[in-house]
């Protein structure tokens, strides 16, 4: 058993002596592996980054929030059926909250009515369009993790009274009041003046998932003054424990049916949605990255493997007499096989390490240049590239190494 260890270290030693003696040749051969590893690790980094960015965004939006709406978030055929569902009203949120309060061990925390509209906001000469204007109540602060940079959110009194106050997302505030504080300034939506009482902290945005930066919050009753009292609202309900979202959804459906006065056996006339669906939207992006990454990886590794196979054949040819000598001294077939396999694997591992270093440097550069983009370098990537490198080395080195191990010692010794 110890013998194989000595043979192994001897093989390593030969492999590195060999690579050192043929530096240029080895580097050129390893190029394919380097490119392959860079491709596979960058791909992994990107997909990793998307997941992490997504988690961050979810946390921002509140991943434990259930959305009570007319339509489910997945595609529906019978659109009219959903369209004709009864609308939601603010009082339903109050009714839900009463049920939640009286249910022992309720999995739900609070229900908040929310109405949203895209629209433009003006301040003097400046105007921003495409802002999500969100009308809600003071409870809104309980369902999202919005941080206020300056000022405050509106309170319950302002909310109920529909006072003309608003809280701006950071990029809305920056656009309307470039270089000066937005606090205590006045903005207009549809001709209604609103006092800015707060500005939210900057959050950054991620692959089009909307963040608070492009939002404006105001009391629901104030929103109605601009957009009419028939504006559709939805209910957002925060669950207490995000790991029990399914049970919370069940409870919410039961409570909503009571609020809506639905009879047993009647189909729900509302839908309960959750953020999970957003995640599916990212899958195509991830798939494209994965397919492109795997394609480049596969191609590069294929080219690399052929190069390494070739160089190992050359190495066996060049050292035929040495193989004969080693066999004469007692090297067995597996010893010779191991020796050339290790040589091929070593070249691949060096290529893999170089590829990893390039990916690491790229990650650092991206983090430096675009801090918003979440690139994540992980231990898993190191393991993956090691495994890929070793596998490439074994696959490409096997045929020549096998041939070397089977050489007739007499023939090998006579080789010049």
């Amino acid at each position, binding site marked *: 058993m*110890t*013998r194989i260890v*000595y043979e192994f270290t*001897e093989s390593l030693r030969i492999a590195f002596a060999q690579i050192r003696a043929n530096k240029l040749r080895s580097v050129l051969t390893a190029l394919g592996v380097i490119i392959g590893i860079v491709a596979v690790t960058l791909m992994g980094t990107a997909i990793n980054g998307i997941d992490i960015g997504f988690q961050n965004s979810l946390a921002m939006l509140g991943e434990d929030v259930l959305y009570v709406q007319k339509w489910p978030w997945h595609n529906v055929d019978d659109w009219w059926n959903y369209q004709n569902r009864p609308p939601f009203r603010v009082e339903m949120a109050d009714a839900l909250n009463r049920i939640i309060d009286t249910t022992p061990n309720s999995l739900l925390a609070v229900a908040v009515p929310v109405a949203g509209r895209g629209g433009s906001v003006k301040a003097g000469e400046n105007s921003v369009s495409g802002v999500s204007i969100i009308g809600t109540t003071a409870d809104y602060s309980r369902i999202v993790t919005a941080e206020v940079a300056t000022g405050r959110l509106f309170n319950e009194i302002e909310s109920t009274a529909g006072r003309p106050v608003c809280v701006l997302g950071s990029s809305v505030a920056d656009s309307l009041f470039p270089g000066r504080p937005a606090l205590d300034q006045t903005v207009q939506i549809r001709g209604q003046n609103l006092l800015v009482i707060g500005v939210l902290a900057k959050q950054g945005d991620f692959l089009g998932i909307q963040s608070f930066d492009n939002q404006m919050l105001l009391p629901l009753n104030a929103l109605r003054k601009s957009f009419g009292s028939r504006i559709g609202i939805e209910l957002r309900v925060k669950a207490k424990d995000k790991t029990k979202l399914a049970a919370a959804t069940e409870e919410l459906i039961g409570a909503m049916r009571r609020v809506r006065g639905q009879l047993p056996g009647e189909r729900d006339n509302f839908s309960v949605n959750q953020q999970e669906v957003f995640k599916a939207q990212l899958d195509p992006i991830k798939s494209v990255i994965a397919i492109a990454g795997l394609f480049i990886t596969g191609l590069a590794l294929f080219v690399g493997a052929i190069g390494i196979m070739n160089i190992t054949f050359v190495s066996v040819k060049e050292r035929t007499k*040495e193989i004969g*000598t080693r066999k*004469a001294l007692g090297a067995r077939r597996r*010893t010779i096989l191991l020796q050339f396999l290790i040589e091929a694997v070593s070249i691949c591992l060096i290529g893999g390490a170089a590829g990893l270093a390039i990916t690491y440097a790229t990650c650092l550069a991206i983090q430096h240049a675009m801090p918003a983009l979440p690139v994540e370098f992980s231990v898993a990537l190191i393991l993956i590239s090691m495994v890929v490198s070793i596998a490439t080395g074994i696959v490409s080195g096997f045929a020549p190494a096998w041939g070397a191990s089977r050489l007739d*010692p007499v023939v090998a*010794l006579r080789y010049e």
Partner: protein
Amino acid sequence: MISPVAPAVGSRVVRPPGELVIEIEGVTKLYKMGAEIIHALRGISLQIRRNEYLAVMGPSGSGKSTLMNMLGCLDTPTAGRYDFTGKNVAHMIDDELAEIRNREIGFVFQTFNLLPRSDALHNVELPLIYAGVPPHVRHERAMQALANVGLGDRVHHRPNELSGGQRQRVAIARALVNHPSILLADEPTGNLDSKTGVEIMALFEQLYEEGHTIIVVTHEEDIARHARRVVRLRDGLIESDGPVD
């Protein structure tokens, strides 16, 4: 198995033959070169005992190297029987032969066959690596073997930093480091000038006197005269077999 008494014949030491090491009977070897069949050995029988110093002579192409490779378990006979220290090796598989080559046989080649990128020490350690000897023991034994051939001060030289004679000494140290039953040398002086050749033959003489069993292949009478017994080959057959002089 060093014999205590070394009776001298003339000025030369002749050690009494020990037990049988090599016994071949009716060994033939055919090589196929395309359609042509070459009879390298046509039926050879030979017995070699411990403590012998044998020269195998013959013109070029007479089958000396083929016989040597067979005796050294690098090759197996096409037909015939080969017992090495009582074990039938004629039909052994590759790895079993490798084991015997590693433990029982020391090879010395005409072209030295040292690893060019390794120093003398590592070259000599090689058979011990394949024998599974731990590193510190390996180091010690290789150092000792190099000292025995007079290269104690050259252990970290690479082959290209050594003269031809020194290279062959490294090869001899490598052949002996694993204490083989027999030392096989195929034209060991063929690549050396005559003065260095004489030095190498003196080393063989010393090794013989120290108790080694040696077979030397050569086509030079001068070299063969160093041995105690000469086997002459011609066209794959033994022409004569007897003591020197």
